[in-house]
């Protein structure tokens, strides 16, 4: 597929609009509070747009479509669970309400009030390592979508994504969260339009019945039809509880995991901390919750449709796999003129996620890793300069680590483990710190260490044993949470209360 003149006009207008809006917001940045949490002036609808745009990146679209391709509609179950978790947290205020009330810039900052400065620093390190490494894969996967959806030569991938990251870096470093919020709003609109248009086109192309029948036939008769040519649905395409799909164990594990994600993932929590008050934060969560069903369900629909389409063709064309099948399929159904909107939408998805993540991790490094180590407190201007420099620094790091340098081995396993280290330990510290009066610094250290040792052990074990003896992801994940909570309980219970640091300073 070749982009027409009209497509290019749409893309250029979108990019210019984002840059102008992003740079324009720079004039309102007076200090760190404006830069990191938008002066805590974010209201409900802007919060919905920002949260939805940040958490729906091009990388999300790629892997949720892959789930749709491999597991059918059942692959979207994770989105349903995540939506449920976000709604319950938004209804009850679990974790997010006291977190917002504490008036902190980051999660580790809260830990200093509860457990002391060393715990803050160590937790900050976990947050940054997990977050930055997680983000390392975004650019390449996003670039692969653009290459396969538009027919761009593969050699352009690195250059296109470098230019895109450059644009994001300019407005994020200048305007911080204020620029991120306004560009997220524009990106939410463009992205939403592209997702709706694409979903309608997919439905029009194969029809709901056509997709359902195609998946059913491939699953029910693996010895015939599509399966005979090498493309078969090996998991039940509708029932996530079926043993060939996720199964009960994985679903139960996801209930815990997604609760941790919506209460602990720093980019999500940044929107809680930027909101006007706790009540606004809870409303943002409740109203964004159902968006997460579509976050998995709609790209999942495209992935499932891609499976049915290529199954009818006989097999996947050479060079395609379950990850790149969806953009390749879309390139066959998107009419000229609409491809510009869809490409702009996908650029929006990539840019909104990148900007939110860059700002968040830079803020944590400045606020929780650097500032506690300097003897003389940084001036507001100095802290702002440091954070802006870190935004640029992380951008350069990602460029080489995630785009120009190819990760050896299975990057997904590596990232899943690092993400688990962060979520298990930091979630435990948050829950213990906010809801258990006996939690203390010893428990926090034990939770951080055990939360890290567990997943690393599983990584090593899975690397040396045969595939049939490897530990299942849900067992590895649940164990890391179990170990972190055990560490918090035993560490706090077995030691005295003498090391508690200003335990009452946090509003519980």
């Amino acid at each position, binding site marked *: 597929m070749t982009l027409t003149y009209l497509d290019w006009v749409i893309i250029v207008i979108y990019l210019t609009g984002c840059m102008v809006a992003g740079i324009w917001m720079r004039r*309102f940045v007076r200090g760190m509070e404006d830069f990191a949490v938008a002066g805590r002036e*974010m209201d409900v609808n802007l919060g919905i747009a920002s949260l939805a745009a940040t958490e729906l990146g091009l990388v999300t679209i790629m892997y949720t479509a892959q789930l749709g391709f491999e597991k059918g*509609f*059942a692959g979207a179950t994770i989105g349903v669970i995540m939506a449920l978790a976000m709604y319950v947290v938004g209804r009850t205020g679990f974790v997010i309400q006291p977190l917002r009330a504490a008036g902190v810039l980051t999660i580790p900052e809260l830990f200093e009030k509860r457990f002391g400065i060393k715990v803050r620093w160590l937790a900050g390190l976990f947050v940054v390592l997990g977050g930055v490494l997680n983000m390392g894969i975004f650019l390449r996967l996003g670039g692969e979508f653009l290459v396969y959806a538009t027919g761009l030569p593969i050699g352009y991938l690195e250059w296109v994504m470098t230019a895109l990251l450059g644009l994001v870096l300019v407005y994020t470093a200048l305007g911080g969260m204020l620029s991120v919020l306004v560009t997220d*709003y524009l990106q*939410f609109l463009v992205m939403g339009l592209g997702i*709706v248009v694409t979903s309608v086109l997919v439905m029009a192309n194969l029809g709901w019945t056509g997709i359902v029948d195609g998946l059913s036939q491939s699953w029910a008769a693996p010895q015939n039809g599509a399966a005979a040519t090498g493309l078969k649905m090996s998991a039940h395409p*509708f*029932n996530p509880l079926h043993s060939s799909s996720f199964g009960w164990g994985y679903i139960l594990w996801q209930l815990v995991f997604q609760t941790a994600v919506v209460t602990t993932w720093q980019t999500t929590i940044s929107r809680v901390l930027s909101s006007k008050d706790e009540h606004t934060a809870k409303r943002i969560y409740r109203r964004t919750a159902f968006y997460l069903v579509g976050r998995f*369900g709609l790209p999942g629909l495209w992935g499932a449709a891609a499976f049915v389409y290529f199954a009818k063709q006989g097999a996947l064309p050479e060079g395609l796999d379950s990850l790149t099948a969806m953009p390749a399929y879309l390139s066959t159904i998107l009419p000229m003129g609409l491809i510009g909107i869809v490409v702009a939408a996908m650029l929006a998805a990539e840019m909104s996620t990148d900007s939110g993540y860059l700002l968040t991790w830079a803020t944590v490094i400045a606020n929780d890793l650097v500032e506690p180590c300097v003897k003389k407190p940084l001036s507001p201007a100095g802290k702002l300069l440091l954070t802006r420099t870190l935004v640029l620094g992380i951008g350069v790091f990602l460029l080489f680590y995630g785009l120009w340098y190819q990760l050896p081995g299975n990057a997904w396993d590596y990232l899943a483990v690092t993400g688990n280290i962060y979520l298990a330990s930091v979630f435990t510290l948050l829950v213990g710190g906010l809801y258990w009066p006996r939690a203390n610094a010893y428990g926090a250290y034990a939770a951080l260490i055990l939360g890290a040792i567990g997943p690393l052990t599983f990584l090593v074990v899975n690397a040396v044993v045969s595939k049939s003896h490897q530990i299942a992801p849900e067992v590895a994940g649940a164990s890391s949470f179990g170990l972190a909570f055990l560490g918090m309980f035993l560490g706090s219970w077995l030691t005295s209360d003498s090391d508690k640091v200003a335990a009452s300073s946090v509003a519980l």
Partner: protein
Amino acid sequence: MKNIFILFWAVMIFSSIAWYAFLLFYVGFKGGREIGRMTRKLKQQSSPGPKGTSGP
């Protein structure tokens, strides 16, 4: 049993498309007004007094 799951996913998928389309207009309208309010407030805060010259 299979039909129940198919019905469930049909509701989820079609509701998602409808929800995304609705939010496009609802959040588009309300969010735009909130940006206007936020920038006005930030502009007032950044002005030191009646003669303040900072801001756009």
